[in-house]
């Protein structure tokens, strides 16, 4: 049976030793509650719940999937009960305002909880995950009355939420969406249209479902500037036993995340209420886009961590062939496969991505806290940095999360392909993360086009300055040279490459598109390199102090070295492909593709 154990030691290493969460929270208004002992207690309980309640349901969810019967959706055995326990535990309320029943803890602590919940069982975690999206929308743009009616019920977990953007003819290009909203005399709207791929759109886990729907008013301008946001409940609060004209037409049969319902949602003159300003729906959504995308970046980490844990156990256990230098365990029938260099490479790759991915996500989550709670320059700087790092976190971490899940499967050999071990499920479940919340390609365009080039490189500089400062500070530390020297060189190259693409783009906008994914991946490798260097520094300091836990810190240094020697060089080929220009892609006549 596959298993999940929350990596509490590593989580606390990142949180406390690398990112100094104690100071971070002390300096944030309203985060006085998040003291180290409180954070530790929350992690402990979250770990227990994830390991004991959610993890055993992960395979059940995959095997049973959700079922649809005349509009009624049934979730896999145990999902509903687990959700009930989650609600009784008060977990949905963690990062929400006390005014509406929340616990008022910082978002970054919510991310820590979500990591455990999501790694144990991603499909299940999407139900509260989507609610979180709906809560953030209401929190940021709802009126007090809307908050009183809907937000409180979402925070308590009695009701869940969804985000209804996608329609059959538009996913990426939301400007084309057609769902209509007709104003009514009483100030409400009648919503009509079809949404597809709606996660958690219908299920049996809660009494009511609050849909946040993007739709168009009758007089709305065409395109993205004519989209408004609406609250459309499954049941209206004053008629909880009646249908509000919202129904689930069918469920999609899909590659992975079977435990989560992916619904076709039909709105047939359903009553809805406008949130925020008319025609500004997409702007409203953008205010917490970064948080939502970070939530998907987390999925990359989740599948890397899960694959790593299970394939590590297998690699120590599975006896096959002998070590190349002669038997390592002569008394056994064969050596455990962890003796083989190529197996170690796959293990270390997963480990390197999971641990630095964790550092990057927790770091970004602290930026989210600052954007939410700070004022002035501190808020502005955090916002700019977060805007720059978000597409990298979302696309890069999900791409390498998928790669890691694949390595995990490969370590199991043929058994990895067999359902029983859960490794193929991990690969299938991870695949969606590169698609929803904006595909890798869209994140890449966002990074290079909007974030970097449109700010004339300012957004990039915001981060390269931080890296530069780090390398400078460590300039005299001989033990850090193996990390800071390559980083400093890459830092410089990053700027130059950006300039090159920018110059070419002035002649031809396709140059941006042609370089984009390579540029994003290149950036991702460097950012994780930076976090590995920071972790290595902490490990060296702790080893020098000699206060114990030597093996843990040694492993950090070994993994950092592996990353710098085996993973970071991937940037070399990306530099070449990124600079090869748009022509090798665009010169092919569309008709010639088929020859």
């Amino acid at each position, binding site marked *: 049976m596959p298993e999940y154990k929350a990596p509490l030691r590593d989580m606390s290493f990142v949180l406390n030793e690398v990112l100094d969460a104690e100071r971070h929270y002390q300096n944030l208004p309203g985060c006085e509650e998040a003291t180290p002992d*409180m954070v530790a207690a929350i992690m402990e309980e979250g770990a227990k719940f994830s390991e004991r*309640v959610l993890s055993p349901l992960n395979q059940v969810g995959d095997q049973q999937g959700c079922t649809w019967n005349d509009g009624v959706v049934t979730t896999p055995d145990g999902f509903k009960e687990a959700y009930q326990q989650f609600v009784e*535990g008060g977990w949905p309320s963690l990062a929400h305002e006390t005014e509406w029943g929340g616990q008022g803890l910082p978002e970054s602590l919510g991310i820590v909880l979500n990591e455990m919940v999501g790694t144990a069982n991603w499909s299940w975690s999407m139900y509260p995950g989507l609610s979180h999206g709906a809560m953030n929308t209401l929190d940021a743009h709802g009126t007090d009355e809307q908050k009183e009616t809907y937000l409180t019920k979402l925070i308590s977990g009695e009701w869940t939420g969804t985000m209804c953007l996608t329609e059959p003819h538009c996913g990426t290009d939301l400007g084309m969406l057609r769902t209509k909203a007709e104003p009514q005399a009483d100030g409400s709207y009648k919503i009509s249209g079809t949404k597809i791929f709606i996660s958690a759109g219908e299920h049996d886990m809660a009494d009511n479902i609050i849909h946040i729907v993007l739709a168009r008013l009758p007089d709305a301008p065409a395109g993205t500037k004519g989209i408004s946001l609406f609250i459309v409940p499954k049941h209206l609060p004053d008629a909880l036993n009646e249908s509000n004209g919202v129904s689930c037409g069918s469920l999609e049969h899909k590659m992975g995340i079977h435990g989560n319902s992916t619904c076709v949602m039909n709105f047939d003159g359903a009553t809805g209420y406008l949130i925020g300003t008319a025609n500004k729906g997409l702007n409203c959504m953008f205010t917490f886009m970064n948080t939502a995308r970070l939530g998907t970046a987390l999925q990359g980490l989740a599948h890397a961590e899960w694959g790593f844990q299970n394939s590590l156990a297998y690699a120590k256990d599975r006896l096959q062939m002998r070590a190349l230098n002669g038997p390592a365990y002569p008394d056994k029938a064969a050596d455990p496969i962890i003796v083989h260099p190529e197996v170690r490479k796959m293990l270390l790759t997963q480990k390197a991505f999971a641990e630095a991915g964790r550092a990057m996500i927790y770091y970004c989550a602290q930026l989210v806290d600052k954007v939410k709670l700070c004022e002035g320059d501190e808020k502005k700087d955090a916002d700019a940095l977060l805007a720059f790092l978000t597409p990298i976190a979302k696309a890069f971490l999900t791409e390498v999360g998928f790669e890691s899940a694949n390595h995990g499967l490969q370590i199991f050999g043929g058994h990895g392909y067999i359902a029983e071990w859960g490794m193929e499920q991990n690969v299938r479940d991870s695949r969606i993360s590169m698609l929803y919340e904006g595909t890798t390609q869209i994140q890449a365009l966002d990074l290079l086009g909007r974030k970097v080039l449109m700010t004339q490189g300012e957004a990039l500089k915001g981060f390269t300055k931080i890296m530069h400062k780090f390398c400078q500070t460590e300039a005299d530390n001989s033990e850090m040279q193996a990390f800071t020297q390559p980083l400093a060189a890459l830092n410089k190259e990053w700027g130059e490459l950006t300039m090159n693409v920018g110059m070419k783009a002035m002649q031809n906008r396709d140059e941006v598109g042609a370089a984009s994914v390579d540029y994003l991946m290149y950036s991702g490798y460097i950012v994780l390199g930076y976090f590995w260097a920071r972790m290595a520094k902490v490990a060296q300091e702790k080893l020098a102090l000699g206060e114990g836990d030597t093996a843990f810190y040694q492993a950090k240094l070994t993994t950092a070295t592996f990353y710098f020697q085996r993973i970071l060089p991937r940037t070399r080929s990306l530099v070449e492909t990124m600079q090869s220009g748009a022509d090798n892609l665009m010169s092919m006549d569309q008709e010639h593709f088929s020859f």
Partner: protein
Amino acid sequence: MKILVAVKRVIDYNAKVRVKADNSDVDLNNTKMAINPFCEIAVEEAIRLKEAGSADEVIVVSVGPKACQEQIRTALALGADRGIQIETDDIPESLNVAKLLAQVVKNEEPGLVLLGKQAIDSDNNQTGQMLSALLGMPQATFASELTLKDGKVQVAREIDGGSQTLSLSLPAVITADLRLNEPRYASLPNIMKAKRKPLTVTTPETLGVELKTHSTLIKVTPPVERSAGILVNSVDELVEKLKNQANVI
């Protein structure tokens, strides 16, 4: 009625136990610690009694260094009302713990004292028994069911042949076995509330108890690793080896 529950900080049952290189003790450096599982069951039972209206206050006591406040907080997060830490350098021997607890019981006058049947680190299974002797209170060990009725407590005990039911007058000392209940998960609001619940620290001196050492730990060795098996060619060879090599028959 007050209920007093004693909890011990022990190595987490999930953690891998390592022995120090010099065999002097178990290595607890950076090892995950937790409430002793049997103590957690005792806490759960006390909270259930309070929820059922049979008790008004649940007090948690732990003996040990400051770190054991973590376990007291955990019990408070589960629903206990206040905590008492009796500060000592290490966790002392059972008899010392029993004497310290006896003093707290005299001060607090609870109607019921609940403990785990044993701690999973030292496996002594004696503190509860010693405590009841020191206090002259009735005891029921290995409880798998507990009911309060007409000023008495009825306890079903796990015994070798099955179950034995006792009725004790109050106040009484009861130690919890595995099947007494399944402890709940702490809820987030309760974790946060636990921080504000009172936790007082006292010392053996204040309680007027002198700690004594009756035994010394000489060494700790890990279990011997299983060595590889050998293949024998015949039953005769097997019997021969079992007789002369393994000396088991």
